[in-house]
């Protein structure tokens, strides 16, 4: 597959996910809406990291660093929700 073709497909996929976000914001409400938006955002970010930011061409160390950053964001959301989810 040529590079242009790959990148165009990724771009199309991102647009598709954008439409999905738009649809979800109308169709869903409350926590379900938040969960859907976050899940779609993760998918979009993953596509961008993998293709546009060249992670698929990189070696193990750089991929590990990217995963480390993701894990670090999980720490933040997890421990912050230990507060927000458990408030009386």
């Amino acid at each position, binding site marked *: 597959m040529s590079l242009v073709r790959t990148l165009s497909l990724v771009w199309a996929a991102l647009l598709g996910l954008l439409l999905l976000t738009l649809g979800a914001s109308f169709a869903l409400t409350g926590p379900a809406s938040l969960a859907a938006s976050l899940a779609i955002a993760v998918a979009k970010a993953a596509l961008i990291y993998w293709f546009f930011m060249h992670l698929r061409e990189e070696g193990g160390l750089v991929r590990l660093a990217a995963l480390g950053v993701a894990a670090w964001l999980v720490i933040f959301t997890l421990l912050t929700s*230990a*507060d927000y*989810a458990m*408030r009386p």
Partner: protein
Amino acid sequence: MTMDNALERRPNPDDLNDRGLSETQDERVSYLRAGHTLRSWLLTTDHKRIAILYLISVTLFFFIGGAAAALVRADLLTPQADLLTNEGYNRAFTLHGVIMVWFFLIPSIPNTFGNFLIPLMIGARDLAFPRLNLLSWYIYMLGGLFTVFVLIAGGVDTGWTFYTPLSSMFSNGHVVMVAVAVFVVGFSSILTGLNFIVTVHKLRAPGMSWGRLRLFVWAHYATSLILVLATPVLSVTLALVAAERLFGLGIFDPKLGGDPLLFQHLFWFYSHPAVYIMVLPALGVVSELVAASARKPVFGYRFIAGSSIAIAIIGFLVWGHHMFVAGQSMYASAVFSFLSLAVAVPSGIKVYNWTATLYKGHIELDPPFFFAASFIGLFVVGGLTGLVLAMLAVDVHLHDTYFVVAHFHYIMVGGTVSAYFGALHFWWPKMSGRIYPRIWGRLAAIFIFLGFNLTFFPQFILGYLGMPRRYHVYDPSFQVLHVLSSAGASILGVAYLMPFTYLFWSMRYGAPAGPNPWDVRGLEWTVPSPPPKHNFEEIPVVTGPPYDYPLEREGDQGEAGDAAEGNAAEGNAGSRA
């Protein structure tokens, strides 16, 4: 010698045999003499010169922050508000905090000693991105001068933590401008962290495996991870405060659907790890000073290196301990309390290993050892009182009192600043090429230790008795302790000025240091003092472990190098066994 004569002795820049004021040929061809113009300093990409630029500028900001502290301590001499107004007092302690945290403590050790030493310690000729390194200094100066400008324009009164809703809704000071300054200086931190990470990964000399890195380098690697990961969060948080103030976006204002406590989550997710940005390099310095003082291999090398990384990681999991009484859920508080106790483990590992390294060492009472010993003592007090504050129930009593102020000053000032001065005294002969009078170094270390304890120990008692922080009008029963503290601060102030006198003196009149004045191991001590512009004539090949001092076994007597005596002692030990 008069000034005219000194100027006449300026060397011909093209003639390396014309020494001018240089005492030795090594000094003549060193980085210090590689160009004499202002331009050759301000546009340099040499990591050693950039380190000197940082040394000068962090010293400047240390004195600005120190002046604000002097105002605060002078005002606290009496229970009334007689020196500063309420507003003026708020602005003085905010200025002290902002300057000391972002313009002194965070850049102090990494940007001066890290910049100077990391390439020398790993056997490289410079950092991976020399121009980025210079850019980080310019960004730092831009942020710093902007802060000084805000100070002249009237200052800010929120404290260095910019808590909402005070900062977002009520404060009349220049919150947005200070936020911009801190935002800007953050990029300097990120660039430095990035540069160190890439340098340690890519520029190690042949044979310099990860297990042969010096502990100073391990500590800076861990620090760099935090710098790169945490600083953007601070930038975003301050941008959100500015957005709420300027455009009324509902991030922290409950009326608009925001949450004031969200600010504290975001801020401390940066700022607690930032505490480790400030202290991890100091821990690295002390590991070096301890090994050099004992002239022994470091006890538990892998554990000290690993504990730096562990501190960097666990340091990200404890931020909620700043919010025990702020309305955070009890469940979260319990989790954060437990994790805060966990972060004491790697710090404890370091302290025990340093002590074990010193055990039966060949210690000489040199100034760096005095600073390292003060560090260990003060760090232990600061760390243990941190555990006291991590207890949920005890924190209800001590939160926002002088006990907290004393605790973090024991870590930041007793710890980091002691290590900073220890590093300055240890590597000064390498940086300047000259020896300073050791007796003055010892005296400065002793006065700093005494002045520090007199300043901050009374604050533990004040806090325990209920004196809240950030108040300048207080109950007269607290006055004795406040006067003690202010008296200590004046001793501390004089003691901090002492090194600048004799170190300056040594630059002109000190004897040449030679490559290894302390008789210690390490790549930086194999090159001339001051080092030549490109550090190493040939890139060294590393064949042995770090700290490869001669090993002595139980029962050995005298120097290990003395084979005959060593063998005899071994025989004795054997017969006793």
